[in-house]
């Protein structure tokens, strides 16, 4: 009997406690920069697409929501012909971001992308591409990679030695 009264008294004291609810549309909660929300495709500092269409994100995706087609431009840079993410399937696991070798695909702290029609949740490349480098400023894959493209031959990348002439006997 006494424990019942004590319980009721404890609950009554909760009248003066702070309420835990966040009044969402008016107040918003703090989302840390690494929050896994809406997916974007970033550009390198020169304003070119970072994505090299390696398909690793598509392979890593556990719900198969990423579809893309690789192609190559006249300078020898690979890029996706189309890049499509179906957000009605996406579970925001972030595996695509982990798999990406060029920091192209990134998750952002934004979850407010509801739609009334389901097919509006299928984002094409122009919806996904942003104008900046996202979370990794200053990184340009083609400038650090050994791959030869138009305007940058082998050995010309940052921190890269000139290629060894294997036919020469000189040390």
């Amino acid at each position, binding site marked *: 009997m006494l424990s019942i009264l004590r319980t009721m008294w404890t*609950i*009554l004291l909760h009248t003066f406690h702070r309420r835990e609810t966040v009044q969402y549309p008016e107040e918003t909660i703090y989302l840390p920069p690494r929050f896994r929300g809406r997916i974007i495709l970033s550009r390198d500092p020169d304003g070119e697409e970072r994505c090299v269409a390696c398909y690793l994100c598509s392979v890593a995706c556990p719900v198969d929501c990423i579809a893309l087609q690789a192609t190559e431009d006249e300078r020898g840079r690979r890029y996706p012909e189309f890049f499509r993410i179906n957000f009605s399937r996406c579970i925001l696991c972030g595996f695509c971001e982990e798999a990406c070798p060029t920091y192209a695909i990134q998750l952002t702290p934004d979850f407010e992308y509801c739609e009334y029609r389901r097919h509006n949740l299928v984002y094409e490349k122009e919806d996904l591409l942003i104008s900046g480098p996202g979370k990794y400023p200053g990184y340009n894959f083609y400038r650090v990679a050994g791959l030869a493209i138009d305007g940058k031959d082998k050995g010309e990348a940052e921190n890269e030695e000139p290629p060894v002439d294997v036919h020469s006997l000189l040390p």
Partner: protein
Amino acid sequence: MNEIIRSLIIVVGVLVVMLSISAGLIWLERRMLGLWQDRYGPNRAGPFGLMQVMADMIKILFKEDWIPPFADRPVFVIAPAVVVVTTLMSFAVIPFAPSIGVVNLNIGLLFFLGMAALGVYSVVLGGWSSGSKYSLLGGLRATAQMLSYEVFMGLSLMGVVILAGSFNLGDIVEAQRKMWFCIPQFIGLVIFIIAGFAETHRLPFDLPEAESELVAGYHSEYSGMKFGMFFVGEYLGITLISAMIVTLFFGGWLGPVLPPLVWFLLKTLVFVLGFILARASLPRPRYDQLMSYAWKVLLPLSLLNLVVTGGIVLAVG
């Protein structure tokens, strides 16, 4: 002629006020539960979420009112009305203020107990006519629980009757001018509150509807406004028991400064909040605990209370 109009106004007034209170209690309960659980509850529709009541009403009125094919149709339809009618009938004998009351029965208390007993039929018939095992189990529990708690609900009030020397609720209130009966009849008060909880099958004594065990108990098969009627009946029951506690133990309309009706409503509100607080804080007892508690503890206690009160009144004169 004036008398007739006056009593008609009182009848309609009591009816309207009680029904709107029972609707408003849904909002009040949700807000208070929210407060005690450190959240807000409904606060979107209208000021303080008050329009939530309207939204709930519109929703429940427009829901499909489905009668399962395996149900006993006429009984199924009547059952939810019974609880509302009997509870509203009980309000007839409650004196809200010295001259505000529908009837001034000299057996008012007995009338209340009789109506409370009739209310059991609603739950029993509802559970039985649904033709579903969960409803039947809920109805079964309700019968046993309400019948056994009714026994000493009546007995616990006899102390008050002895002290006041009348079954008339108005006289009982008047008899509390010197001292509210909650002091000399403290045991009676505690027993009556417990029995009142069981009688309205509110938490923590909501075993007839125990969501975690019986789907929704006796009203599992009900939908639409029939389901709503059970809820209106439940909230009316809370108001009724609170009003009875106030009338019998806390001096009804008696109180300084404020007008009698305001005192009555304020005291009733406190006990309604008590009902909600109990729901917010207490767990449901096991069924056998509930029954053994009733028969082994509360019944002897209320008999003892009756004997002691009677003895003292006899001795003092």
